């Protein structure tokens, strides 16, 4: 994957473009509605789903509250079972650790199990910069990688592609990466899957190092858990001689028993299945295998410090909130400018990148390069950015927008301002309809966090003034009454189409007729309708 989210414009502009893409709209409508329906059916048949959901939430909250303790317990358990634990404060450090571990094996390629954490840190790009090729083995990730594209969904990263497009990508690109697609490849799902299977099989059998993430880590036993649907994960986790797992520190569960709750919550919320096809668990290193666990912070402890925002760390990446979101359904994932799209992305991305307060990020935020601009391709500098070594010149543009970045630049880090404008617009990428909160299996009150982040986001000057003026009018009933009378008097002069920012309303909607008399004036004049 070589595209980048760097320098992406704010969400409304990305969204406006996406909304006009009929192919994208068609694919998304079909896909999100199908998964949505499946999820609803699978959740509906579980008696006591709400209790299960509450349990999931409580277990996560408890774990987060005692994260320090459980992390140390995990480290000890993993070490006891023959694994090695590495701590990575940020994306750079994690990438450096992984690259170093791969180099130590003398290999120049790795196979990958689909993992959000490694996308978040831009691992593939970082490895590529050190001459190591990362091969994605999940079907959808393969499509994205071959297509030099960006993921647009947590669970179905190629949700924006249809069968015909996938066939084209396979025919054109597979040969560059390994076994070519068969000459007579059709766009039948079975044929496409078979082509991918043959292509990947060679890779599994010849690669000695694998990189994974994990859905859960059990502190008690040091066990890691991966849920997947294609069996590629199991191949990666068992065949190679060295396994490196990069996992966010919030993926922890205290005990095996806690897993019971999540193995019910996740598949039903995510793929709409009673149980996912492949659940792999492993504890430390098995005979003849080396196992490394890279525990990733990358902004998580900062999120944990925010009393309202921290609930985002409960997320188990099921993507139910994406599938149900009316905004996501119409714009797709790329508009969110992050590997985490949709409602969860809107609250997680600004917090992880540390741009949620409009200031520059402390060292080591989530690199903007981790994913692609819609239709954009990665400029040469993107790798540098993902390693936190963005050249000063590249920040010139963003500096003009966001002076706060000056400090970041002087620290020689990737300036948060590279994504500041986009990140500031993410909390507003929602109508606050609450559908996400309703489906979230760990009850993250996404609308609450959105509103919380909006309060911290930088506001445009004109909006600030307008809001202050509205606040001033609404502060006193007399002022409101006067404003109402004025608008009543001017009502005949209000055009059907308004200029300036108000055109955003009247471009597609009529404005209501302004009444000659407000309710309060009517009440006064008629003594509450009695005169």
């Amino acid at each position, binding site marked *: 994957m070589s595209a980048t989210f760097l320098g992406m414009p704010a969400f409304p502009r990305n969204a406006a473009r996406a909304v006009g893409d009929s192919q994208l709209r068609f694919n998304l409508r079909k896909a999100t509605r199908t998964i949505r329906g499946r999820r609803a059916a699978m959740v509906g048949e579980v008696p006591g789903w709400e209790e299960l959901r509450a349990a999931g939430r409580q277990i996560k909250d408890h774990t987060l509250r005692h994260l320090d303790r459980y992390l140390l317990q995990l480290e000890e358990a993993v070490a006891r079972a023959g694994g090695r634990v590495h701590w990575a404060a940020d994306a750079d450090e994690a990438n450096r650790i992984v690259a170093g571990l791969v180099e130590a094996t003398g290999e120049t390629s790795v196979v990958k199990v689909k993992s959000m954490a490694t996308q978040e840190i831009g691992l593939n790009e970082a490895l590529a910069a050190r001459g190591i090729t990362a091969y994605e083995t999940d079907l959808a990730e393969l499509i994205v990688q071959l297509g030099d594209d960006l993921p647009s969904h947590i669970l179905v990263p190629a949700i924006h592609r249809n069968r015909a497009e996938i066939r084209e990508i396979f025919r054109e690109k597979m040969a560059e990466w390994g076994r070519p697609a068969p000459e007579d490849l059709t766009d039948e799902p079975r044929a496409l899957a078979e082509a991918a299977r043959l292509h990947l099989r060679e890779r599994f059998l010849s690669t000695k190092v694998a990189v994974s993430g994990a859905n859960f880590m059990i502190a008690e036993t040091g066990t890691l858990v991966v849920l997947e649907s294609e069996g590629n994960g199991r191949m990666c986790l068992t065949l190679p001689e060295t396994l490196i797992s990069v996992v966010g520190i919030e993926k922890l569960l205290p005990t095996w028993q806690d897993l019971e709750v999540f193995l019910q919550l996740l598949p039903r919320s995510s793929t709409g299945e009673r149980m996912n096809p492949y659940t792999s668990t492993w504890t430390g290193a098995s005979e003849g295998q080396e196992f490394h666990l890279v525990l990733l912070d990358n902004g998580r402890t900062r999120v944990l410090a925010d009393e309202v925002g921290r609930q985002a760390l409960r997320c188990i990446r099921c993507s139910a909130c994406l599938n149900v979101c009316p905004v996501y359904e119409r714009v797709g994932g790329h508009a969110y400018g992050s590997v985490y799209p949709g409602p969860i992305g809107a609250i997680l991305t600004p917090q992880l990148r540390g741009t949620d307060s409009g200031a520059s990020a402390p060292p080591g935020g989530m690199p903007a390069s981790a994913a692609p601009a819609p239709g954009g391709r990665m400029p040469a500098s993107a790798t540098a950015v993902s390693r936190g070594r963005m050249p000063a010149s590249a920040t010139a543009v963003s500096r003009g927008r966001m002076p706060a970045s000056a400090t970041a630049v002087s620290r020689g880090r990737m300036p948060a301002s590279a994504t500041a404008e986009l990140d500031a617009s993410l909390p507003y990428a929602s*109508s606050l309809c609450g559908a996400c909160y309703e489906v979230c299996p760990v009850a993250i009150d996404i609308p609450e966090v959105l509103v919380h982040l909006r309060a911290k986001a930088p506001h445009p000057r004109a909006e600030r003034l307008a809001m202050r003026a509205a606040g001033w009018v609404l502060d006193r009933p007399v002022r409101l009454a006067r404003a109402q009378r004025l608008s009543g008097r001017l009502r005949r002069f209000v055009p059907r189409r308004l200029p300036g920012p108000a055109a955003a309303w009247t471009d597609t909607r009529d404005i209501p007729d302004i009444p*000659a008399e407000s*309710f309060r004036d009517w009440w006064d004049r008629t003594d509450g309708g009695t005169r």
Partner: protein
Amino acid sequence: MRVALFITCVNDTLFPGTGRAVVTLLRRLGCEVDFPRAQTCCGQMHVNTGYPREGTRLARHFADVFAGYDAVVTPSGSCAAMVREQYPRLARTAAAAGRPASSGTARDAGGRAAGRTAPPSFAEEVAALVPKVHDLSEFLVDVLGVTDVGACFPHRVTYHPTCHSLRGLRLGDRPTRLLEQVRGLELVPLPGAEECCGFGGTFAVKNPAVSAAMCADKAHNVMATGAEVLCAADNSCLMHIGGALGRQRAGIRVMHLAEILAATESGETAAAPAGPAARTRTAPATRPLSAPAARTLAAPGGATPAGPAAGTPPEPGPAAHGRTGEER
């Protein structure tokens, strides 16, 4: 029962007919309705757009104004949800910040809290207030215990349950139970009813493209029902969907639930003499009024339960033509 009407700033300014309908309806059901003049706005726009300071100031004002009432009724699901869901949060934040709770003005203007020696904290006010604030349909069904409000509205109607009513207040089937009891009314289900219409307050102008795309689907579903009237318990969403339907010349009216529930066989909907509120602008072609609907709803010179249409218009204007058309 004595209830305070929280009209909401949007209804007060743009949709006074909804307020008059609430008054008519509640009086018909035996309530004494009070309109505390000091009220302004619940603060939702400010809070949801990222201006909690201004929003909290308005929330405190609201809490002061309505402190003395047994029940507060509002014809807006989202403003009721604002009070119920967000006021406690604002109060917590304010308490954490340690600022004293007082807006002063409301106390003086409303006079309700006058004479208290130690004013209660904002958090205390909110805790006392929250259980007393009801959306209209909640108040009718849960507090008054009625579903048949004696209304008559012989039209084909579809109901959009707006997000904050559905997922915030969890109104469930209360509004449709009320509509089902309205004589002559044919209620047709709205496909994809639970989906957001795309209004979302400032979302509608901050993300106009997405908002319009969402509204297009909503409007499409509304048209598919073949209904003549789209009803909801929130005029903000109706202003948005109705604005799009009007722009598309769809020929479908939008009406607040209160206006339908206030309508009776004799034709009156509101306690209002029609005078000054009458539209002076000619009905735009974009919002065609069906003749029978206009007749049912308009009460030009007709008797109202509260008194004859005797108000002297403060400004010259023709008589009412069809009340529902006038405000939208």
